[in-house]
């Protein structure tokens, strides 16, 4: 459908006004909110993720695209809820205890939302028990831990240990942040690691069993 393609292009380019207008036009034309998300917004954010991975766009452009998507979702979410359409997967995300940095965590949250995941954002400085209770409450498929500081890497390790010991058999744990590496993720027993917000979508999809 041309309008859906236009919406995809508008989101990918971060054109907020166009994104909202096209979403309204699609709704007025009788397109279901689920279709608009799946065939308009999600492909748009997928383009953003790919461009980010290839260094064709950068943090500012990604933020602008995510804002455009967010505006569209404001229109669509009440309709999705009314129609009983729920995201298939839920992610609980936060920056670990002792760490107040949130740009990386926010970017990844936006990309996950853009991939159709429900995201429960616990914010920064999150103690292990808060991750656990949120994962339990929301039946999370994935818990995402972020850390920017070398001094909070031990808190990430501790959180993974506690979450693993607490027993959440259906919840995978994913980690990321500037000083985090695949080797560190393996060492602390995380199920997944991503070096950037674009890759984080692919890794999350693999972890929940959805082909990336």
């Amino acid at each position: 459908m041309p309008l859906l393609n236009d919406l995809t292009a508008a989101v990918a380019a971060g054109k907020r006004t166009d994104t909202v207008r096209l979403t309204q036009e699609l709704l007025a034309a009788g397109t279901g909110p689920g279709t608009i998300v799946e065939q308009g917004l999600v492909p748009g954010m997928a383009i953003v993720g790919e461009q980010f991975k290839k260094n064709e766009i950068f943090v500012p452009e990604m933020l602008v695209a995510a804002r455009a998507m967010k505006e569209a979702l404001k229109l669509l979410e009440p309709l999705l809820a009314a129609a009983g359409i729920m995201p298939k997967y839920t992610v609980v995300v936060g920056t670990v205890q002792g760490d107040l940095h949130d740009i990386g965590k926010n970017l990844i949250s936006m990309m996950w939302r853009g991939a159709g995941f429900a995201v429960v954002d616990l914010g920064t400085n999150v103690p292990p028990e808060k991750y656990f209770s949120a994962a339990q409450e929301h039946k999370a498929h994935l818990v995402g831990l972020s850390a920017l500081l070398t001094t909070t890497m031990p808190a990430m390790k501790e959180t993974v240990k506690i979450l693993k010991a607490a027993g959440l058999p259906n919840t995978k744990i994913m980690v990321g942040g500037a000083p985090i590496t695949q080797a560190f993720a393996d060492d602390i027993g995380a199920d997944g690691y991503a070096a950037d917000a674009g890759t984080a979508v692919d890794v999350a999809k693999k972890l929940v069993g959805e082909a990336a």
Partner: protein
Amino acid sequence: MTSREKVRRALNHQSGPVPVDIGSTGLTSMHVSCVAALRQHYGLPNHPVKVVEPYQMLGEVEDDLARVLGSDCVGMKARGTMFGFKNEDWREWRAPWGQVMLVPKGFGPREDPSGDVYVFPEGDTSVPPSGHMPAGGYFFDAIIRQEPIDEDKLNPADNCEEFKPVDAAEIAHWKAELTRLQGEERAIVGGVGGTGFGDIALVPAAFLKHPKGIRDVSEWYVSLVERRDYVHQIFDFQCEVALKNLETYANTFGDLIDVIVICGTDFGTQSSQFCSPATFADLYAPYYKRVNDWIHAHTKWKTFKHSCGAIRPFMNQFIECGFDILNPVQCSAKDMEAPRLKADFGDRVTFWGGGVDTQRVLPFGTPEEVRAQVTERLRTFSVNGGFVFNTIHNIQARTPVANIVAMVDAIRDFNAGK
């Protein structure tokens, strides 16, 4: 050869002993806990360490410690702090990790029963705090105090409150610093502020009581795309003020300083960049060039640019803008391998950093691993000068003292030809 001569040779790309900087700036120093641990290790007088930069909780590397560490550089001490209060009226404070240190009177702080610590702009507790150290933390982060944004009423002047002509008190402070450093044999590193364009650490303006304009970090990044004219207008104003102030500083400092820190704006992330080279060319390069050109035309100072991350795509642009020195040379980031950097750019810029990885090897490696990396970096970067040894950014809290000592020993042995 004096320390200053060593540094000058390196900056002029002449071979010789590798000079070292540990502690001359807020970008090349270490956490207050590390300073105390090193003082104890080396048997230096045991007294509370001064926190000279409260945002990152950097401790003062006093002359006695600098000598033991082999540092060839000394910094001019800043009068103000990231939180707007002055570095004066020192008093003792016990940090949450138990260390007793000296902090300026304006530091406060407010300590919550939860263990969270808050500091206030200019030390004024009648306004909301601007800095927050979470329980279990070792540093502060700026608290975002963004007023609601009305696009129609956005005024670039609101983002320019901090850019002012230098006043007499400030000049008197710098003159006193020069007097303190008279006869100094180490290279003197100055940093006067106001020349950092779009430094994301400064955007929230933790030093202002009521910051206006764009002060939220994400909102600032969005502005680089959606409000580029607004950002240009800020940079235009900032640049004009900076150039006037540089005139005053040049008259005050003359040739007494060797290096001036220009800008700490980070253009790199661990694996990418914060903007494209095209954005850099449009939005940043013209201002950097004006500042560097003015300095080179009127002084002998070498200009120092700090940017973390994977900045290889900007290296030629940094050099073309006139920067003489690059710091911290984050070799752990993508495409930042030391041998390639040295081979491709080493004859045109001085690497002030890159000595050892502070994300992994220094905090988490063994002393043997530290020694091996330090020695390898010294071999790589020291060829034909163009290298001042410094860790990759400040040494972080919880770094084992044995690792820092291994680093210092490795440098000393390398310079002794061992």
